[in-house]
């Protein structure tokens, strides 16, 4: 019989907005107290926001649950409360079992210490006992692939090595309940794959997992159940595929070209996409794609520091309207290799015969520089496609299949009758 691992009841968290902006000083506090009798009228009430508002749900032991929602919906606040990092303003949470939180990779790493020393330090900070760390030490080192650099100070590590080591320690935490907050949205492709693999292992081993992410494909892969948070409340709770659909439908659906103000994105942010436009082969701008026709996806980008970018990998992932991944175009795969780019410019991806039928899709542009994800717009921007002659036969995809999967060029060879009628 499964027990309840986490029970959240009417949870609410209020933040004062002014709190984050200025630190108080003793001098100011004293002056305010002294001046109070002389100030006319009442003090203006401080502005507050409710990051979480009457949140309730239950998670059984062994469940893997995805937590999704826009930036600011309250996902990280929820994890922080469950991790006991911050206190709720109202409500109650019951947690049964040891909790391990992965809110960040490499928490407590000190740059002056060596890899070996940081394994011990980070492990202790995450809650592992020394005996446990020693027992798993070799596994951790093997997972991180940094054996040769174990005794070098971490400040000499590349970003990739640092992340691998940090995740290796965190991955060997064995709590009953694991809370993961988008740690996987860092690092390069092979690192991500490793993270996903390990997370899958943890979920299959029967631990309870709460996984906050913007990566719909990852959430779908790991979690049979998901909870959608909107403005601090549970908006949907159920089967992941349905919840994702609901989420995508709730997003602002007007195709937007200017990306500079977009907040629903991941990545370090030193380089950002500023605009996304579509063109045909003549250079004319398109509002939407046409099935079977060439489309050029032009993504303007800008590097904040004004520096040129080395080892760049750009990709554009295509999702159907349910959030299912369809295919991915990657600059690395097609021989553009790991490029070196100027600080601003336009990256273009050309698809010669758009293999999509008439429907609305989502496209997620992704930019990685030197092994670190800089900008990743997920769950993506809307992209409409209208019917076109993909197969050269004048025929379009049947209505029941519109928007389902991708179109693949192919031919059929059917036997003919011996007599010619």
């Amino acid at each position, binding site marked *: 019989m499964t027990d309840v691992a986490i029970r959240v009841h009417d949870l609410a968290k209020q933040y004062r907005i002014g709190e984050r902006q200025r630190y108080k000083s003793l001098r100011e506090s004293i002056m305010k107290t002294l001046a109070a009798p002389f100030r006319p009228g009442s003090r203006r009430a401080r502005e507050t926001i409710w990051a979480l508002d009457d949140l309730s749900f239950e998670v059984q032991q062994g469940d893997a649950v995805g937590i999704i929602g826009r930036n600011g919906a309250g996902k990280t606040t929820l994890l922080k409360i469950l991790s006991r990092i911050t206190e709720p303003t109202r409500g109650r949470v019951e947690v049964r079992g040891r909790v391990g*939180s992965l809110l960040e990779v490499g928490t407590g790493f000190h740059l002056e210490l060596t890899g070996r020393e940081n394994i011990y330090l980070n492990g202790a900070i995450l809650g592992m006992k020394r005996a446990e760390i020693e027992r798993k030490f070799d596994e951790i080192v093997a997972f991180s692939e940094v054996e040769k650099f174990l005794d070098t100070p971490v400040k000499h590590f590349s970003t990739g090595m640092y992340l691998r080591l940090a995740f290796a320690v965190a991955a060997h935490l064995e709590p009953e309940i694991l809370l993961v907050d988008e740690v996987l949205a860092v690092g390069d492709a092979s690192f991500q794959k490793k993270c996903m693999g390990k997370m899958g292992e943890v979920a299959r081993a029967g631990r309870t997992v709460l996984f906050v992410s913007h990566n719909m494909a990852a959430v779908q892969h790991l979690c049979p159940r998901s909870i959608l948070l909107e403005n601090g409340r549970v908006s949907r709770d159920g089967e992941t595929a349905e919840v994702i659909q609901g989420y995508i439908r709730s997003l602002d659906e007007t195709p937007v070209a200017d990306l500079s103000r977009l907040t629903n994105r991941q990545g370090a942010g030193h380089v950002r996409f500023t605009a996304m436009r579509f063109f045909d082969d003549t250079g004319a701008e398109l509002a939407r794609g046409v099935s079977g026709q060439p489309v050029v996806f032009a993504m303007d980008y800008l590097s904040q520091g004004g520096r040129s970018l080395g080892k760049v990998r750009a990709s554009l992932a295509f999702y159907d309207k349910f959030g299912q991944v369809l295919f991915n175009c990657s600059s690395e795969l097609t021989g553009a290799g790991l490029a070196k780019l100027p600080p601003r410019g336009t990256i273009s991806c050309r698809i010669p015969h758009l293999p999509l039928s008439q429907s609305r899709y989502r496209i997620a542009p992704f930019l990685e520089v030197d092994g670190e994800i800089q900008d990743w717009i997920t769950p993506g921007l809307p992209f409409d496609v209208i019917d076109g002659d993909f197969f050269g036969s004048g025929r379009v995809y049947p209505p029941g299949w519109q928007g389902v999967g991708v179109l693949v060029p192919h031919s059929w060879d059917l036997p003919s009758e011996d007599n010619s009628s």
Partner: protein
Amino acid sequence: MNSAEPLPLVVIEPTRGLAALRLGELWAYRELLYFLVWRDVKVRYKQTVLGAAWAILQPLMTAAVFTIFFGRLAGISSDGLPYPLFSYCGLLMWTFFAQGLSLSSNSVVGSAQLITKVYFPRLVIPIAAVLSGLVDLAVALPILAILMWHYGTWPALAVLTAPLLALLALVATTGVGLWLSALNVEYRDVRFVVPFLVQLWLFVTPVIYPASVLAPRLQRLGLPAWSWGINPMAGVVEGFRWAMLDTPTSPGPLIAASAVTGFVLLISGAWYFRRVERSFADVV
């Protein structure tokens, strides 16, 4: 996953009123405390050119300067002991206190990264900062032995109380450290007040001069000599000198008074820290 014993149940709720001290939890996290002290000491020594030598040079050079200006030029008495020995001995305890204050006052703010990402009892942070000073103290102690040998001054049985006095120093330093580190989170200028505070405190503690200098003044005000023990470090420094160097001062009442103040500071510091701890992650 089947476990024979029931899993621990934790209830997370807004804390109302007085927060429990939860010493049991601190004990459960003792390994983390060890690692944080280890980290602070390792990093401190890795980054400096002088490394461990700094732990010796600081009290030694201060003692040298004090000897020249206070011992010789100003002619301040030293309980019948050679001034260099007198001042170095007092400075050992004083350096521990001063360093403990300066490290712990910014410890919580400096660990903002940790506090906002991982759970552990926050008390661990300032306590680790103060404890790391014990290593420096241990490094500087042999020099005291050398000085004692050089001047031919040997301790009496009272030396057995030295560890207790060191413990009292720990209690007092931790108490003040808890207050400062907690206040600093809310009021960031506390960190800048600390060097000034430490400087004033030095003059108010019998480090440069012996406590016997104060007794006549206190009597004139109608106060007993041990009332100076309201400064917890007064008892520690004077007591440590008595324990190690066998001074004829019998500072028993002074030490007792300092012990009282020290524990009051520790308990009140822990209370205040636990009270404001709940908002650390939001404010830091």
